[in-house]
């Protein structure tokens, strides 16, 4: 029998040459199977060889290494990471949503079932719609796209609305720098998302669903489309979901390179074939969403937590986590980090554990200067803040946000003033243009930061920046303009020297940080 090797087909693994490794293994007579990535991205391509002990991993394999992998010549060195399931980096995590990612072949429905898949949907189909929503409410599951809004409440609003047609839309726009969990879930275990969306549809009485998937993710688009076809062929989707009589049709729609289309109402307009401009709320999408119909809009990770919630019960999920942040969060370590990748852990884990214990510090080996948590609209935090627990409320209280769980690490060569400028510049570039504080304020923000950094009337311009940030925070229609001040103010607060500013002068600007999640303009996103 020929040896069996697993080579990830995840885009990150492909970006460092996994396909060539797979081809070389096949040429050497090995049976190659393709999995998603385990999320230990610094080890990619991570090839796993099936043995009596389990799947043994070899890190950073190149085509020329294939003979050494097969002959055992690497077994005593650093490149062999042992039985992958027992790797300490994985063993210390709590994989719930990502339990199958990297383990199974992404579009193998039988393997999905064998590893616990479809149990949640099967149970949901034995419950009333009200009971399904009650499980989700009890789980305490909150939106993973950024705003942390309770999923159960949203679902119940859609469930109670009466309409001829209702929709479930998955937000897979994942535009935040430093986030890639949506992509890896879709590429590594797409049936989990399909199952979560189907449960949502059954619970709220929706018959049609869309996944709005960004065009920057061609591999995810392909894998998800294939998985949907397979789900139809096996009666998971279509006229009678698992024979229940519920209809649910699901389609993938591809974004077109606009960051703002991650904002849910902009996404809905884009799905309708319009410019992705943000809608004023109310009406909320739960009542008047896609084509004016009641619509569930949830992030990939929110929906992907649902199968487990239904399979094991809401109480089991609610037993994990801390405070009002229940369950697990799929954290993503990126940027200048030694051990970047996916860390799924219960809420409450500290930033320090993530950055230092899992991340292993910077990739450059230099000291960590700051991390940005929660994407381009999130705060920059210095190591002095690393004891913060990952918890929506604790972060909001620290003028920061958990967001989609992305953590970007910077070493001491980072220029916080340049990053603040970039935040304004990015906002100017990606603003949908609908409201003035964001459209004009961001452009002005770039100019004002330039003047501060150049030392031109620094005091006066600091006051101006403060005003500008306040106007953007208070006057923007959505969180794009509303939260851009967060990275700007946090950079200035923690690293005033990068603006050429004395710490005391910076204080005036940073006193008035954007307010917490719940008071965000438009309520779209903390």
């Amino acid at each position, binding site marked *: 029998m020929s040896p069996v090797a697993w080579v990830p087909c995840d885009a990150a693994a492909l970006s460092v040459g996994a396909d060539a490794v797979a081809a070389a293994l096949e040429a050497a007579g090995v049976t190659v199977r393709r999995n998603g990535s385990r999320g230990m991205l610094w080890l990619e391509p991570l090839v796993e060889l099936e043995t009596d002990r389990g799947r043994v991993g070899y890190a950073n394999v190149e085509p020329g290494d294939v003979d050494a992998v097969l002959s055992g010549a690497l077994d005593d060195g650093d490149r062999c990471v042992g039985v992958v399931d027992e790797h300490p980096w994985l063993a210390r995590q709590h994989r719930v949503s990502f339990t199958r990612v990297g383990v199974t072949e992404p579009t193998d429905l039988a393997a999905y079932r064998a590893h616990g898949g479809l149990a949640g949907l099967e149970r949901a189909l034995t419950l009333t719609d009200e009971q399904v929503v009650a499980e989700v409410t009890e789980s305490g599951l909150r939106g993973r796209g950024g705003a942390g809004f309770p999923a159960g409440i949203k679902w119940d609003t859609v469930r109670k609305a009466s309409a001829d047609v209702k929709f479930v839309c998955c937000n897979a726009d994942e535009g*935040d720098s430093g986030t890639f969990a949506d992509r890896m879930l879709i590429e590594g275990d797409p049936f989990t998302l399909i199952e979560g969306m189907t449960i949502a549809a059954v619970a709220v009485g929706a018959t049609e669903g869309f996944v709005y998937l960004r065009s920057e993710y061609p591999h995810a688009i392909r894998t998800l489309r294939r998985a949907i076809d397979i789900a139809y062929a096996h009666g998971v989707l279509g006229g009678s979901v698992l024979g229940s009589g519920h209809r649910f049709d699901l389609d993938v729609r591809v974004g077109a390179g606009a960051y703002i289309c991650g904002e849910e109402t902009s996404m809905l307009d884009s799905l309708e074939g*319009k410019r992705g401009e943000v809608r004023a709320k109310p009406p909320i999408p739960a009542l008047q969403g896609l084509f004016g119909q009641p619509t569930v809009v949830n992030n990939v990770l929110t929906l992907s937590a649902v199968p487990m919630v239904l399979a094991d019960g809401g109480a089991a999920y609610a037993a994990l986590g801390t405070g009002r942040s229940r369950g697990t969060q799929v954290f993503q370590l990126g*940027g200048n*980090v030694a051990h970047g990748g996916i860390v799924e852990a219960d809420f409450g884990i500290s930033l320090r554990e993530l950055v230092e214990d899992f991340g292993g510090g910077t990739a450059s080996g230099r000291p960590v200067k700051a991390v940005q948590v929660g994407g381009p609209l999130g705060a920059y935090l210095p190591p002095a803040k690393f004891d913060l627990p990952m918890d929506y409320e604790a972060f909001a209280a620290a003028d920061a946000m958990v967001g989609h769980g992305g953590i970007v690490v910077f070493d001491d060569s980072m220029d916080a003033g340049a990053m603040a400028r970039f935040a304004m510049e990015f906002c100017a570039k990606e603003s949908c243009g609908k409201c003035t504080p964001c459209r004009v304020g961001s452009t002005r923000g770039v100019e004002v930061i330039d003047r501060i950094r150049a030392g031109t009337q620094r005091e006066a311009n600091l006051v101006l920046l403060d005003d500008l940030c306040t106007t953007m925070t208070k006057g923007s229609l959505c969180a794009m303009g509303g939260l851009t001040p967060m990275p700007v103010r946090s950079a200035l607060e923690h690293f005033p020297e990068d603006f050429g500013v004395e710490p005391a002068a910076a204080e005036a600007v940073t006193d008035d940080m954007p307010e917490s999640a719940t008071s965000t303009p438009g309520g779209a996103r903390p």
Partner: protein
Amino acid sequence: MRQRGPSPAPAPAPADPERAASVRSIAEQLAGVRGPLLPILHEVVETHGHVHDDDVPVIAEVLNLSRADVLGVVSFYHDFRRTPPATHRVALCRAEACQARGAEATYAAASDRWAGSTEVEVGEVFCLGNCALGPSGTLDGTLHARLTPDRLDALTEEWVR
């Protein structure tokens, strides 16, 4: 384009009837889906490389929209490019996580190297979801990691400068 027969002053380039027929067929095939405009525009770019000004009235007619509506959508999204792509395309990520790993140096080197080139176009993107292995970018659509200026050089060695 060569002109046939005696032709007075330079006339505007005649619309390409073959292309118009193809665009019409794409639009007609997708017209029945919900919110068909984005899928149609994606397909046009996929098939023809870009959305030409002449494609707009064709799509507008099939969908029963005004030209301004279609143009408004085309111009809103980065993906719906309105000029043909160069022979080779470099798209480099300039978002935060890649900046933390030196993306700006790579972008500057690439912009420099291919300044004025008609063969190679250099563009920026904001996050490709490969944020732990940056600087990331795509070369003719294929994703690459750890794109230092040197590695970019090596990977594009065979391209015309």
